[in-house]
């Protein structure tokens, strides 16, 4: 035990020394030289996308985002494979005590967070946000039902089958959008839709389409993922 700590501390000290050596030769934070920014900024104006981060994610590097959503899909599949559903249906009536304030806050925040999630997904190309962030907010809002102590309401309002279909369909449609871009625009995931007016909801071409697809995929994926954890958590109360 002691040997491991000593070896570990020596290793960490070595890594820390490497960091100091590396950071001393890095450009200072806060300076004006940003090569990528200077390349992305005109592209954002050309593709009529005010949110440059979404422009990077769903336009310039949309192929990377395809990989990113594949990671999410793979994690969901992996978790489902690792955590097989229990043999017998878990009991859901043995609920513990939930503070009334928590319950009230949960029910009040549920519609707010669902609306907020939809808003973040749909306006991903205009304001801070996008498919990933909005999808997580949506899935979180859904699970406020669990925090408020009504697991049965959550189980009823959570069509797992449909979430699985939605996740797979959204992931597939992303590729389909890319292939349409390949057919019409000449390159995979090319921005082929009309770009519209700067700052309006229907603008930026395929950016909001891909953002909404990612939002559906992430929200559905997280619901499926968490549902499997919930089933296992309820199975073995400790």
């Amino acid at each position, binding site marked *: 035990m002691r040997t491991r700590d000593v070896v*570990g501390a020596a290793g960490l000290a070595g890594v820390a020394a490497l*960091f100091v050596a590396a950071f001393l030769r890095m450009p200072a934070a*806060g300076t004006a030289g*940003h090569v*990528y920014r200077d390349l*992305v900024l005109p592209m954002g104006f050309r593709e009529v996308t005010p949110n*440059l981060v979404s422009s*990077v994610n769903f336009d310039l590097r949309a192929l990377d985002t395809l990989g990113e959503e594949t990671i999410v899909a793979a994690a969901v599949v992996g*978790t489902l494979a690792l955590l097989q559903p229990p043999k017998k249906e878990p009991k859901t009536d043995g609920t513990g005590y939930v503070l009334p304030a928590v319950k009230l806050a949960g029910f009040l925040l549920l519609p707010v967070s669902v609306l907020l999630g939809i808003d973040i997904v749909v306006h991903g190309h205009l304001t801070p946000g996008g498919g990933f962030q909005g999808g997580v907010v949506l899935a979180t809002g859904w699970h406020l039902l669990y925090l408020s102590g009504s697991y049965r309401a959550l189980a009823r309002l959570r069509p797992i089958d449909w979430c699985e279909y939605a996740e797979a369909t959204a992931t597939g449609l992303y590729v389909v959008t890319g292939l349409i871009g390949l057919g019409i625009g000449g390159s995979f995931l090319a921005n082929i839709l009309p770009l519209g007016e700067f700052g309006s909801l229907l603008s930026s071409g395929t950016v909001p389409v891909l953002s909404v697809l990612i939002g559906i995929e992430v929200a559905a994926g997280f619901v499926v993922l968490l549902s499997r954890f919930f089933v296992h958590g309820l199975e073995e109360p400790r």
Partner: protein
Amino acid sequence: MTGVVSAACYGVAAWLLLLGCAGIMRSRHLVHTVVSLSVAQSGTYVLLLAIGYQDQAAAPIVSQGQSQPVVDPMVQAMTLTDIVVSATITALLLALTLQISRRHGTVDPDELRALRG
């Protein structure tokens, strides 16, 4: 001024990574190990955002004819990728932890010595 900012940004990034690694090393519970990994990964978020930061620059949400510079959106997009990877890895590792706890009856990494079929 920039010296202080860089020292703070890079220092915090390195500190988070080292702290997370130390947590993984001294962990006595697999959930603690997973959380330590998340802490270590947060160091990379801080580093990425520090690289893209610029004094007096606005968020990378532009309006037409904007003359104020913005911070680097590329590293912010990479931070987003980083967070997604971190979340999925956390989910997978927690699923593995559940399976280990069921199969071996312990979540202390030190007690998990022998492989069992």
